[in-house]
């Protein structure tokens, strides 16, 4: 069908104009200077990249990578167990679980964050219980803190890990588990020596699916972390919407792309190693 090939052109043009060109623009702007009134002055400079190495920025990068890493590891570890339980439920229940996990996944992130805020907020059940038990607490610290950010990240991104891992379990050959059981393996041995090695590619994939959006997360640290929390997403938003230092913001953005690319490289190397070992 020759007609079909021609159908590609509008989309190609669209992607070129609204994905490839804007991203190239970010690269170009990162080498420019900030104009006096917040615009972009086209004088080539490496200054924006030099500023990336300042202790304040390095700290933000380190904290963001750390938080994204911890969140991704937690989501994958919890997700693999939850997905295992989902996949071994009866087929009717499986569909129900799928909807149950997909609904919060497709719920607006702001609503999930609002939910957490009301849970720990002034009229929420947590403060009510603490008051009832006469446990002293600081209501300001309670509604904005680091553990709350971490909890918000993990609970928001859990479905990102559970859904693909569930997909992997759907393709998993459960007769391997039966075989292991027949040979006298306990639950822990089955998990560690039968399930995990076979799921390696999906584990790496879901790690990335959580890690990538986490690294640029803005809403959760902004609304749950209070004024003290500054992560990459907040830094970028600040540069683009408030400080209007676009060249520096673009350099930070490129550093983010680069670190994501590195994470992807490591995870896919691990994944091909895993599948090669499996084939051997």
């Amino acid at each position, binding site marked *: *069908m*020759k007609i079909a*090939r*021609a159908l*590609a052109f509008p*989309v*190609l043009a*669209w*992607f*070129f104009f*609204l*994905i490839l060109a*804007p991203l190239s*623009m*970010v690269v170009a702007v990162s080498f420019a200077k900030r104009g006096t009134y917040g615009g*972009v002055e086209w004088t080539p400079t490496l200054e924006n990249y030099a500023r990336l190495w300042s202790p304040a920025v390095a700290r933000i990068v380190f904290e963001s990578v750390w938080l994204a890493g911890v969140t991704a590891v937690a989501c994958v570890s*919890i997700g693999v*167990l939850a997905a*295992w*339980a*989902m996949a*071994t439920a009866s*087929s009717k229940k499986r*569909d129900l*679980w*799928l*909807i149950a996990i*997909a*609904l919060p996944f*497709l*719920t*607006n992130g*702001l*609503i*999930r964050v*609002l*939910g957490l805020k*009301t*849970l720990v*907020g002034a009229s*929420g059940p947590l403060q009510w219980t603490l008051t009832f038990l006469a446990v002293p607490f600081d209501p300001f610290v309670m509604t904005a803190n680091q553990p709350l950010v971490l909890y918000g990240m993990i609970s928001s991104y859990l479905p990102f890990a559970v*859904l693909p891992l*569930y*997909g992997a379990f759907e393709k998993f050959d459960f007769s391997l*588990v039966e075989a292991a059981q027949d040979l006298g393996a306990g*639950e822990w041995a089955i998990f560690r020596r039968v399930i995990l090695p076979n799921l390696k590619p*999906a584990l790496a*994939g879901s790690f990335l699916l959580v890690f*990538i*959006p986490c*690294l*640029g997360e803005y809403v959760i640290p902004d609304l749950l972390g209070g004024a003290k929390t500054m992560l990459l997403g907040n830094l*970028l*938003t600040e540069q*683009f*919407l408030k400080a209007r230092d*676009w060249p520096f913001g*673009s350099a930070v*953005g490129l550093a*983010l792309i680069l670190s994501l690319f590195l994470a992807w490289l490591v995870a896919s190397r691990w994944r091909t190693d895993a599948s090669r070992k499996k084939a051997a």
Partner: protein
Amino acid sequence: MSDERLRPPAPFAARAILILVTIALYLPLLNVVVLSFRVPEGWGGEWYSQILGDGTIADALVNSLIVAVASSALATILGTMAALALRQGGFAGRRVLEAASYISLMLPEILFALALLSWFATLKIALGLQTVILAHVTFSISYVILTVGARLASFDPSLEDAARDLGAPEWKILTGVVLPLLAPSLFAAFLLCFLLSFDDFLITFFVNGAGSETLPTKLYATMKTGLTPKLNALAALMWLASGAILIVAFRSKSIRGLLKAGEKA
């Protein structure tokens, strides 16, 4: 089914974690719903009637709907065209198309948002609903390609061959045979885009400019100023809307397949 016999139940710990995860996911959402009925005198639907009477919320809702309908329609058309083209294979732009669609799926929202913002500024395109629509179409197209592409992959080519043997011209095969058979997946793709667009906050927040609030940006702005029970009522209504669309969407095989397969990483 023999398949059932082959799946020994997961250990108790795993089942317990699944239940705990579900509780952790729903508790905050249910709390919003419960608190939205909390009024000074006890319980009631007062906040809901206040929301219905709030003009700024109505404006945001109208903006959200304009953006969602326009961007989903455009994305469904463009994405279907791309899926049809990709099925043929062997043309020069194929690699670029696949790469760009992969980038748009994997790129963190915030990078996409700031790239578009500086691009629009460079081209001196005024920010407003028009730029929000352009942005939403761009991130939706890849989901359409996946949804419609999945249906096309299981498509019987002999139907097209039959039409061709009977002398149908190419465009007639497309409009008379292929598109009607694709209709359910087109509908599913439209719903998915609608949901993505209706829920998007970050990209909209960057490219909407002053005065074109959508529901999520309105929700964010209100949350920044403080939590009120009225806010809970608004969030509960938005959650209900997403849930209703999801349940309709879940009836479609294409979307269920997409969820089950997980996203490709």
